[in-house]
């Protein structure tokens, strides 16, 4: 009962976290990756000495490739982001990276790597060390836009589909709150569960240089599908209690029914999230670098989904229940 009685306190805490998330998105913004904007990404790894990033940046920006952003990646790698490169321009860029190793030695005997670097991903060797191209990804601008549109449509489609499903699944539960209120709350919870990890990602991007890519969109969509689970478990309990009470001709304040349902289901809500969180922690710590941000976003989403379902979803039924209470139920109380 504790949670339901003190719901206003929890509403404010959740509200505060929510505001922080929105604030981070507003302040730091969400840098879009080439998946959405189009462009090229080149990641190379140096064995041995890595050239100075500033010098490298200056050197590659001399090429007629537009603005090239250069960033350290990992211990010995460099990540370059440019506009969409043709295969020939890509070769040119690699050649330039090769000369940079050579010139950074400040030695006259070193043969430049420009010709060997042109052999694309085969390592180009210089006297100082080699660099290997780890990946080259180039996306045309039209394709990028298309992906962004698709991701947006997918998010909306998932939200609508889930809301319809919940309203349908709870269609027999209409007293004292109509099944659409359950569906509506689920949508509110979904927005919350998506915005919290997005805010987290805005902060992460700001400090690590990650960008919003299609995997991030996947993570959000997976959170949508998953986080609603806990909410369903609690609503399911409310549904069951209401059903039983009706059979037993028992009159129980709605608030009490909701409070009982939250307490009874809390253990399982936490445990189900814990198993998923354990799997995700394994993915964050031991998984590939490519899916690390993805797993982190999911982890934050799962945590947000858990507390929002316990502290927000079911307690929200009470004020909304009062507001949307069906006429003739005899429990028309004053609006809060």
């Amino acid at each position: 009962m504790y949670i339901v009685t003190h719901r206003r306190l929890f509403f404010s805490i959740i509200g505060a976290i929510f505001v922080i998330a929105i604030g981070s998105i507003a302040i730091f913004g969400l840098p879009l990756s080439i998946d959405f904007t189009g462009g090229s990404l080149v990641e190379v790894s140096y064995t041995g000495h890595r050239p100075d990033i500033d010098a490298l940046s200056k050197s590659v920006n001399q090429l007629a490739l537009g603005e090239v952003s250069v960033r350290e990646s990992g211990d010995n790698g460099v990540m370059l982001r440019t506009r969409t490169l043709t295969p020939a321009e890509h070769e040119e860029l690699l050649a330039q990276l090769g000369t940079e190793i050579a010139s950074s030695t400040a030695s006259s005997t070193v043969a430049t790597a420009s010709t060997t670097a042109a052999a694309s991903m085969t390592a180009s060797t210089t006297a100082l060390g080699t660099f290997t191209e780890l990946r080259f990804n180039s996306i045309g601008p039209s394709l990028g836009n298309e992906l962004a549109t698709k991701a947006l449509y997918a998010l909306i489609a998932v939200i609508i589909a889930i809301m319809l499903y919940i309203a349908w699944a709870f269609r027999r539960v209409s007293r004292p709150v109509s099944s659409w209120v359950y569906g509506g709350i689920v949508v509110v919870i979904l927005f919350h569960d998506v915005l919290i990890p997005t805010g987290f990602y805005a902060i992460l991007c700001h400090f690590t240089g990650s960008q919003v890519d299609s995997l991030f969109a996947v993570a959000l969509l997976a959170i949508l599908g998953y986080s609603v689970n806990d909410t369903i478990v609690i609503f399911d309990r409310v549904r069951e209690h209401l059903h039983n009470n009706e059979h037993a001709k028992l009159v129980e304040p709605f608030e009490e029914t909701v409070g009982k349902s939250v307490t009874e289901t809390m253990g399982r809500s936490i445990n189900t999230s814990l198993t998923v969180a354990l799997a995700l922690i394994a993915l964050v710590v031991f998984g590939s670098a490519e899916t690390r941000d993805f797993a982190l976003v999911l982890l934050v989403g799962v945590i947000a989904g858990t507390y929002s379902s316990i502290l927000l979803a079911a307690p929200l039924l009470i004020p909304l229940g009062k507001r949307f209470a069906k006429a003739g139920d005899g429990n028309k109380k004053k609006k809060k």
Partner: protein
Amino acid sequence: MNSRLARVISAVVVLAIACLLAYFVWATENPSSRYAVHLGLDLAGGTELIYKADTSKITSDKQGALNSLRDVIERRVNAFGVAEPVVELEKASSVAGNGEDRLLVDLPGVTDVKAAVDAIGKTPVLEFQLEKQEGTPSKIGTSTQLSFTPVFEPTGLTGQYLKSAELQFGNGQGGTSANEPIVVLHFNDQGAKLFEQITANNVGRQLAIFLDGKVISDPTIQEAIPGGNATITGKFTPQEARDLVENLNFGALPVPILLVSSDTVGPTLGDVAYHAGLIASLIGFALVSLFMILWYRLPGVIATIALTIYVFITISLIKTVPITLTASGIAGFILSIGLAVDANVLIFERMKEELKAGKGAQEAATIGFGRAWPAIRDGHLTMIISAIILFWVGTSLIKGFALVFGFGVITSLISAVFITRIFLQAILPEHGGRAWRFLLSSGFHTGTTDPNAPSIDH
């Protein structure tokens, strides 16, 4: 008891099937096996190229033109020497507003983008153009060009209609000198008809053969040519003629293509990602199992067995469907391991409540499964809905995740609900004493009956 025997038998049957699956997974681990896991380019290393097919000039039978485009590119890729290439046509989804036709080319193991693009893109575009009727001089070009260069107009006959090309040597008859190399073109039925029509209607005019926009031969039409064969005598050297035949056979592209995206992953990065994914899977599995056993005791052990079976079912599905495994697919798999025990947690918590209320072990299990089912069903359905939508709109990366995630959710429903139920019912006693109650309890409880049940106050 008879029903008891039936329960034990079904548990044994499930175990036997699980062992068969485990054996299948183990036996097909060899990379040469027909059912070896097929790794995506991001794990195996390789290049994915996406081309836009410009179909704006194709008026009739667009699909046919696209299909022959795919065949030509496939031949070219095979000639490039790639193991297991994938060449697919894809329609950009109308969701995004434009119905572009795309060609996806996956080249496992290829990391030299430029060489690959060159090999695919070197396109001899073959076209037949007619000399323009007099009196319609072109407005393009200077006057000198106008007077010396014949102006041609397209006939609609292109490489699209070419069945094959062949190298022959002249025999000194029919306008050819002895041993002169001749390229003979064989058109398909449609092309043959078109060729006959063009030649019949334009006797006396020049019919130029363009290769990559250059005239390679411009014979004058003497008479209608039926049969669908045309010869090019372009004063070739034998080598030039041979190259031309090869290019035509391997390639006159029926539809022009434009590279819109390429993604290349080096073998090192892919290898690292793959092994990290495997290790993360194992550790994720171990963590989840450990938690389930420590917290839920005996049912936890059974859930772990069900989870193991779940893993084998999923891997078998990945191998037999087959689903191409990508880094995001592995992430989907690990996520589904955490999700797979969700249903078990719901069931066991419910069982525990019933046990506290003083029900016998078997009865508590039956009620637990029954009561937990609506929530399990609703939860899994919403996840399946999102997997379907992801798969529907996704790019190959997202599809990889959605497919593994979706299959995982469906499989976990089977393993967590049905398999766990069969095992639990096979080993649980009808009522059970203190020891059983302890084994079936969870967390910090010792399993004594709570007189104030069913409400729980921690």
